[in-house]
């Protein structure tokens, strides 16, 4: 009886150790991979068309989803914000509410979540399939470094696109808030803009949002290229990698957002 329990406990510990071991190993490989991407990124700037092609795929092709989502989020913010603010007789502050929530939080975070599912997953799929069809190995045989040729441009394409997409998201969102608040509901236009301009600081609010979206861009792009590069080269393995990209990106974005926010916005 006691022996049986001991075996069960040992088995459980072995399983936990195995999972932990695997996890740490992957983390170590991810760190080494990140260093390699940075080391080999010279080529992605010397042969700029490689990076430009990736900006097209991850940045330009995400424009539609970013603009439409930003507009709707801004409009919802306008509606909800008005509903709450008018209870306290301060509907004039609607512009402040919309602009601050978008530039500080919603712009960077929601744009990064959308970016992870729209662009991150396709980056992972592309690299994973290249690995599954042994294109990466073939490159290696031809003395072309696959990290320099395929991975680094995708990484930098994502890093460059992300802040621009987040800024666009915030700007379109503010416009959506304006549409609902001023055009539809009838908040005073002058108060909407002037209160917004009075309370939104470029360095404190807008620029911190840009820094956030840059950090998210690095995180999402790194996770996407790493999961693709590390994919098990089968159809099942690639699909599992894509799933992990979306899940890990979302978790990384939200956790990083908390850390960055606690550094940036401490209320002086």
């Amino acid at each position: 009886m006691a022996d049986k329990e001991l075996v069960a406990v040992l088995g459980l510990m072995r399983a936990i150790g195995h999972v932990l071991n695997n996890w740490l190993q992957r983390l170590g490989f991810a760190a080494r991979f990140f260093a390699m991407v940075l080391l080999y990124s010279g080529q992605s700037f010397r042969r700029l068309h490689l990076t430009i092609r990736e900006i097209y795929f991850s940045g330009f092709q995400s424009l539609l989803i970013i603009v439409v989502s930003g507009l709707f989020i801004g409009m919802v913010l306008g509606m909800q914000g008005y509903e709450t603010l008018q209870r306290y007789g301060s509907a004039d502050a609607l512009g402040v509410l919309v602009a601050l929530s978008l530039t500080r939080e919603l712009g960077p975070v929601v744009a990064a979540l959308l970016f992870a599912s729209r662009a991150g997953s396709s980056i992972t799929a592309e690299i994973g399939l290249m690995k599954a069809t042994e294109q990466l190995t073939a490159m290696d045989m031809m003395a072309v470094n696959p990290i320099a040729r395929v991975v680094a441009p995708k990484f930098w394409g994502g890093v460059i696109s992300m802040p621009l997409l987040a800024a666009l998201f915030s700007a379109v969102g503010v416009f959506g808030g304006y549409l609902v608040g001023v055009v539809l509901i009838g908040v005073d236009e002058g108060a909407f803009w002037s209160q917004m301009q009075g309370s939104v600081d470029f360095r404190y609010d807008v620029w911190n949002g840009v820094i956030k979206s840059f950090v998210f861009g690095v995180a999402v792009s790194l996770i996407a290229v790493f999961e693709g590069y590390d994919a098990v080269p089968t159809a099942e393995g690639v699909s599992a990698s894509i799933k992990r990209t979306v899940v890990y990106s979302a978790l990384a974005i939200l956790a990083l957002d908390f850390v960055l926010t606690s550094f940036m916005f401490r209320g002086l």
Partner: protein
Amino acid sequence: MSRKLLDLWVGFFVVVGFTALLFLALRVANLSGESFAETYTLSAKFDNIGGLKVRGPVKSSGVVVGRVSEISFDAQAYEAVVKLTIDGRYQFPKDTFASILTSGILGEQYIGLDAGGDERMLKSGDVVAKTQSAVVLEKLIGQFMFNKASETPGEK
């Protein structure tokens, strides 16, 4: 897709992104209107600044004429020292009165400047001599309660 077309679309994307950033900077954060072209600095000492914050507005007759640029504590005199950055277009007399006011009942606090009648003007680096501290609501309520309690019922 040809490389030219690719470049074109990416260029379009980058332009759109930077336009959005410019919109956030100029229209939302009003980067252009915030910075006064020419400014000079005044300082003022207060016993109590209440909830005044750095970047809070300095108003005269309700018009924003400057910003609070720095708040520090003078450990010798036990007073708050507030540095004000005033728009260079506006000059104030030597005997200007600075007081800490509140916009609305619970609004943000700002510094109000009431011009005096002196013919000499304040220069950069000068100290505003006459100040009035923030009204602390708790103290006011406390005083009011105290006065009410000391009133004898018969007097009414």
